[in-house]
């Protein structure tokens, strides 16, 4: 069983979202890090200040054998990227919910309600 905190929102692409005063803090779920196993790099495909479309990609996460895109759950503007992860990508394996990847100022804060809650995500991944 993976960890799925009730306080967060989720996407079907295995991102978690924590709302912090209109800013969506985004990372990948415990389930995702467990499936990827050894995470060896985070590559940013956008810059701070860039506007991003819903379901666009802004970063990729690399494990030993794979490269997986990370999607923007909701449209907005990237206000921060966690560059520290490039020095310690394994932090995502150690603490998926403590290792945010991007902070996105949402164009429509209300759109968060359309994302999965913990129960919905648990059902999606069969837990």
């Amino acid at each position, binding site marked *: 069983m993976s960890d799925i905190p009730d306080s967060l929102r989720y996407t079907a692409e295995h991102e978690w979202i924590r709302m912090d005063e209109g800013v969506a803090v985004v990372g990948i779920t415990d389930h995702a890090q467990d499936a990827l196993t050894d995470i060896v790099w985070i*590559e940013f495909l956008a810059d701070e200040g860039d506007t991003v479309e819903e379901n666009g990609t802004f970063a990729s996460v*690399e494990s030993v*054998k794979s*490269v997986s895109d990370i999607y923007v759950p909701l449209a907005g503007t990237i206000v921060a990227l966690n560059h520290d992860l490039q020095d310690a990508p394994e932090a995502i394996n150690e603490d998926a919910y403590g290792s945010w990847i991007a902070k996105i100022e949402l164009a429509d804060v209300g759109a968060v309600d359309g994302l999965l809650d913990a129960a919905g995500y648990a059902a999606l991944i069969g837990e």
Partner: protein
Amino acid sequence: MSGGDLVRTTLYDAHVERGGNLVDFHGFELPIWYTSMMDEHLNTRENAGLFDVSHMGFFRFSGENVREWLDGVGTQKASLIKPGRCAYSHFLDDNGIIIDDMIFSVASRQDILDSGCTDWESSSEIAILGVPNASMIDHMWNHFHAHIDEGITIENLSDDTSILALQGPKSPAIIETVLGSDNVVRHFHGQAIVENSLGVTGWIQGTGYTGERGFEIFVPNSQVRTLWDALLDEGGHGICPVGLGARDTLRMEKGFLLSGQDFCHPDLGGSENLARDSAETFVPFGLNLDHDFIGKARVEATKAQHLDGGGIKWLGLKVTGKGPFPRMGHTVLKDGVQIGTITSGGPSPSLGMVGIGLAYLEGVEVGEEVEIAVNPRRNLSAVVVRPPFI
């Protein structure tokens, strides 16, 4: 395989019990990792790892002059390989394009009888035991038969045979513990498995795909669970089960070709970049030009280009900075001009996760700096090296 059910090797239950993460691998349901690819990789280099490679094929070739026959179809001069020894070969089409590669061993008639095959119908004094790649079993069966000589017989033992690969510096000590010292065959030697306390019969050879000291063990399906459990539970010396993920990073660090990834025949869906001859792969073994074989003309032409300082060579790329990793399909550039495309790449666990890649390159020398276009925003700097990387 297309759309059918996944094939499970005899060890499927054993993989599940030991926590294997099972995936579809060329139609076989096999573990990609048990605990972590990185840990399994490093443990194989430091101690030992055990791999289920039962998806690989197992052919037995026999008949008078079977080695001379194989001379004609393969790049290796099999007639030079004595009973009890192993060798590597490529098999080319008429135009010199690689169809597949294969490790084989040469066995005497007595070896075959001693390996548990007491009802062998052949009267051949020599047999060749070959290990075609999993997805290539049918293609190679057809290819060999398209070039068969009278009196040569090929038996496909793939479905009845399970294959374990024990790899790593502690492998000899583990074989000694589990199967006795008489079964510790030397590097690239092979023999019938000598009588042992487990009652396991079959063939053992000092080969593998990791570049480490190791063994590949061929046993009847009915015996493989006994051998697998005994090696892991009684072998000691830090042995662990290893999935196919680490198998790939281990072979990449040694610059070993992967069929279907680093070469692939156009008839099997391979891209132009993967339609290669043996000289282009630049692998320093398996090619003997001192005999005639199918497809030789192209190999000789490539060799001649190399002697003139030109031609294409499959070489290594070692990334010099931190960042994303070279992956299959990335473009390799020199002074902004494409000189090749990555066939295999990723982090090297044994080099502290330095990025490594392999590519067919033209117009560049070992030691030169090139760039790898990993995404629209970034080119990696890399140095051209001759594999192995470690």
